[in-house]
């Protein structure tokens, strides 16, 4: 494995050493921070800031990367604070212990956790402030709290008494924070569960939204980097003589990960970089190839140390022996890149011991901790401001580009905006690991499974990123391994194999490979049994009402079983992920060149209690389009340790003409909220693969399902 110089675990420690809450709030950059220092903004708690002029600002601990958290997080607060969404502003929270995502143990936006982790926390935060404002008014008016209520930013009292939240905020902020304020009965919600306009849309339709790439600081210079074509390789020497003489070039500096050119415009830096010749020590990664990665993983599946994902049920060996028939299949998922549209970038200004960082990150605490470790400064001397993220998908959990920006700023003693080229971005990702899933089932005389042995071999992101001890279960490799079907004898095994690739968390993480395998395999069993894949699944879902419900709803909406035009077929798939239940039906045909066209995906989703149903729909659309690309088009390949895909021609995201119609059925539910940013991607793969198998009679078990893959299947 290619090691990062300091483990992420120490970043986490460094990050959590920073004190949270009110102290952190005064480190907020920008006008809010200045107003706080001047005493005109009050902080009843870490989530709600109320100014004397009645401006109410809600802090989002989660980064806005398109998933709508700058709307859904404030909705939770506003619901209990009793303010309208048009009365509030949203800003990104600074790093701080109070903003830690309890589901992940760090201040991270990822894992489809934002709503799940904030559902109670932010409603409590809103209710606390509401109660404090009421208490402040009660004291001011010398009346009992029970006579007061808070509504639309005002506290209302007897005899027409009223006061704005702003006028009460200073007094309220001095009161003790109630630990357990009363929360509304969900049936009384006015905001949560209602379709709500995104607060960030207007800025994203007139060019004013500030992404990392748009940051400017007085005196700022521009940088770009060249990293070793073999990830992890180091600079041996470099020749920058020509670059240094080029217009606008200010410096060429070596940093931990490579060489940076600094100039008075980014284009000049980039042009100069084209002339910089670097001699690399390529390191251990230079022998990697796609074949070595996949074959090594397959060998590990056969003979590697087995880790139980869950306790075995029944006796699989005996049931297999007694089965009428045994069916086996192997499924292969390739590496994937995140490739968000905004290339990696960050802006840094190092001034002695003090550091300012501005940019797009999914991991505020990590960014702060990583730069503290790299520059040997104190985390609390690092101010970090989060911008909008031009896509994340897991890539911006990583901290490489943040540290690079800080190193360059330190070297040139100026504020620096670092921006990578697309090629650097695609060839220096933290890739979704490849996976090999081997499944074996014993079926009875009716073709129904009596035993299932599931095994997945892949690489652990959590070992690399967070130092998870070897040979222990990485839960991010076991997602959706256990499907919802009633099968009496089951065994679910994991083998962790380190291929040497630098791997990262990617949209839906291991759900994508495990659901592809499980749901393809169930289809294969149905076919072997001569049964309809929908009916076959349904037979195994008694006592699983949420699974069965979404399966039925998707099938009904898609017209499952109804005739289709010639040359089209449907496929179905089902999964639970992030506490959400999804079924998808894909309708496909073949293009003239033999590639697959997905015409329509119908999805039924039970995501528990929804915060913003419009965002749920948007995320389903988004994750399905993302999934279409992964299943039909995308793979990252390697030769001599070099990633072969370099830009959007060799790793081409789904385009408008390839994007399917998406029909959505949402289940109304009062179950606890599930995550919805990711699972749709994972279910799309088997739904499409099953449709292709139904159409062509060919089962492609290795993604992506390209025209070539179909020809040779």
């Amino acid at each position, binding site marked *: 494995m290619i090691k990062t110089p300091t483990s992420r675990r120490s970043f986490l420690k460094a990050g959590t050493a920073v004190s949270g809450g009110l102290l952190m709030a005064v480190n907020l950059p920008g006008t809010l921070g200045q107003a706080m220092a001047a005493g005109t903004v009050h902080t009843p708690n870490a989530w709600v800031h109320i100014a004397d002029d009645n401006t109410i600002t809600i802090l989002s601990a989660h980064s*806005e990367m398109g998933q709508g958290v700058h709307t859904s997080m404030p909705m939770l607060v506003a619901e209990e604070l009793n303010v309208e969404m048009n009365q509030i502003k949203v800003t990104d929270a600074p790093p701080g212990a109070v903003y830690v995502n309890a589901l992940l143990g760090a201040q991270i936006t990822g894992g489809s956790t934002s709503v799940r982790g904030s559902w109670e926390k932010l409603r409590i935060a809103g209710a606390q402030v509401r109660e404090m404002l009421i208490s402040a008014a009660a004291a001011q008016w010398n009346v009992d709290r029970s006579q007061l209520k808070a509504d639309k930013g005002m506290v209302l009292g007897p005899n027409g008494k009223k006061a704005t939240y702003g006028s009460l905020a200073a007094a309220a902020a001095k009161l003790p924070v109630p630990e357990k304020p009363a929360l509304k009965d969900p049936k009384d919600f006015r905001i949560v569960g209602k379709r709500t306009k995104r607060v960030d849309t207007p800025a994203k339709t*007139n060019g004013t939204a500030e992404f990392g790439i748009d940051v400017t600081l007085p005196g700022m210079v521009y940088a770009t980097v060249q990293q070793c074509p073999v990830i992890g390789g180091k600079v041996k020497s470099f020749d920058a003589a020509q670059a240094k003489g080029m217009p606008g070039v200010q410096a060429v500096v070596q940093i931990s990960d490579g060489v940076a050119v600094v100039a008075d415009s980014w284009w000049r830096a980039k042009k100069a970089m084209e002339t910089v010749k670097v001699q690399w020590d390529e390191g251990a990664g230079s022998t990697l190839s796609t074949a070595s990665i996949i074959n090594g993983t397959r060998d590990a599946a056969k003979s590697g140390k087995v880790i139980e994902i869950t306790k075995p049920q029944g006796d699989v060996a005996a049931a297999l022996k007694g089965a009428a028939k045994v069916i086996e299949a192997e499924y292969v998922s390739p590496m994937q890149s995140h490739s968000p549209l905004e290339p990696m970038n960050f802006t840094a200004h190092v001034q002695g011991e003090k550091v300012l960082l501005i940019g797009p990150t999914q991991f505020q605490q990590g960014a702060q901790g990583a730069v503290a470790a790299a520059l040997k400064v104190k985390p609390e001397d690092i101010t970090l401001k989060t911008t909008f993220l031009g896509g994340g998908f897991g890539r911006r959990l990583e901290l490489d580009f943040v540290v690079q920006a800080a190193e360059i700023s330190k070297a040139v003693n100026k504020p620096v905006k670092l921006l990578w080229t697309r090629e650097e971005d695609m060839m220096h990702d933290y890739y979704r690991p490849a996976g090999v899933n081997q499944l074996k089932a014993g079926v009875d005389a009716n073709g129904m499974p009596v035993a299932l042995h599931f095994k997945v071999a892949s690489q652990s992101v959590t070992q690399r990123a967070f130092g998870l001890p070897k040979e222990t279960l990485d839960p991010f490799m076991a997602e959706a391994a256990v499907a919802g079907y009633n099968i009496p004898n089951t065994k679910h095994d994991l083998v962790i194999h380190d291929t040497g690739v630098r791997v990262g968390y990617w949209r839906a993480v291991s759900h994508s490979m495990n659901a592809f395998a499980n749901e393809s395999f169930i289809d294969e069993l149905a076919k072997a049994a001569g049964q309809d894949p929908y009916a076959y699944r349904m037979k195994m879902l008694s006592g699983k009402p949420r699974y069965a419900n979404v399966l039925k709803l998707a099938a009904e909406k898609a017209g499952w079983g109804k005739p289709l035009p010639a040359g089209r077929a449907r496929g179905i798939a089902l999964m639970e992920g992030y506490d959400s239940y999804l079924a998808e039906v894909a309708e496909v045909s073949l293009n003239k060149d033999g590639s697959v066209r997905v015409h329509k995906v119908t999805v039924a989703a039970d995501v528990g209690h929804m915060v913003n149903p419009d965002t749920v729909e948007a995320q389903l659309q988004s*994750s399905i*389009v993302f999934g279409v690309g992964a299943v039909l088009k995308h793979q990252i390949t390697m030769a001599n340790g070099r990633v072969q895909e370099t*830009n*959007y021609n060799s790793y081409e995201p789904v385009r408008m003409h390839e994007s399917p119609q998406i029909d959505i059925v949402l289940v109304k539910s009062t179950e606890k909220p599930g995550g919805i940013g990711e699972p749709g991607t994972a279910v799309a793969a088997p739904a499409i693969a099953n449709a292709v198998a139904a159409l062509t009679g060919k089962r492609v078990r290795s993604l992506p399902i390209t025209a070539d893959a179909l020809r040779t299947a």
Partner: protein
Amino acid sequence: MSVNFQVNGKPAQANAETDTPLLWVLRDELGMTGTKFGCGAALCGACTVHVNGEAVRSCQTPLSTVSGKKVATVEGLSKNNTHPLQVAWIKHDVPQCGYCQSGQLMSAAALLAKNKNPSDADIDNAMSGNICRCGTYPRIRAAIKDAAATMRKA
């Protein structure tokens, strides 16, 4: 040597080397950051602007080629989101991360300038050069049709 042209109806002058792509002149010299960099190879459309009314990829448009011409960027649609496309984008809550949307809007604006009643195939043709990694395509399609209907009535 400086190059003179118009941006959103106002005179502009740039002093960058004349082979500098218009994208970087707009962003770094003129401070108009609404136009985005995605690929640097005319593959993604994030940098789409209009030159004399035609949608072009500004990452592949040298400064020298816009001398004396009219450049329009997302900032020129309207600052207050009153252009029919902006109204439709907001109505449908099209953007997710939002990074590609300046380019999407400019490609859509070039389409509707010529065709106020685009079919699905017309939309595919005009918009397939613009990648949205968030997959907002269903909403982009709906918003373009909505804006087209508004513009037909106007």
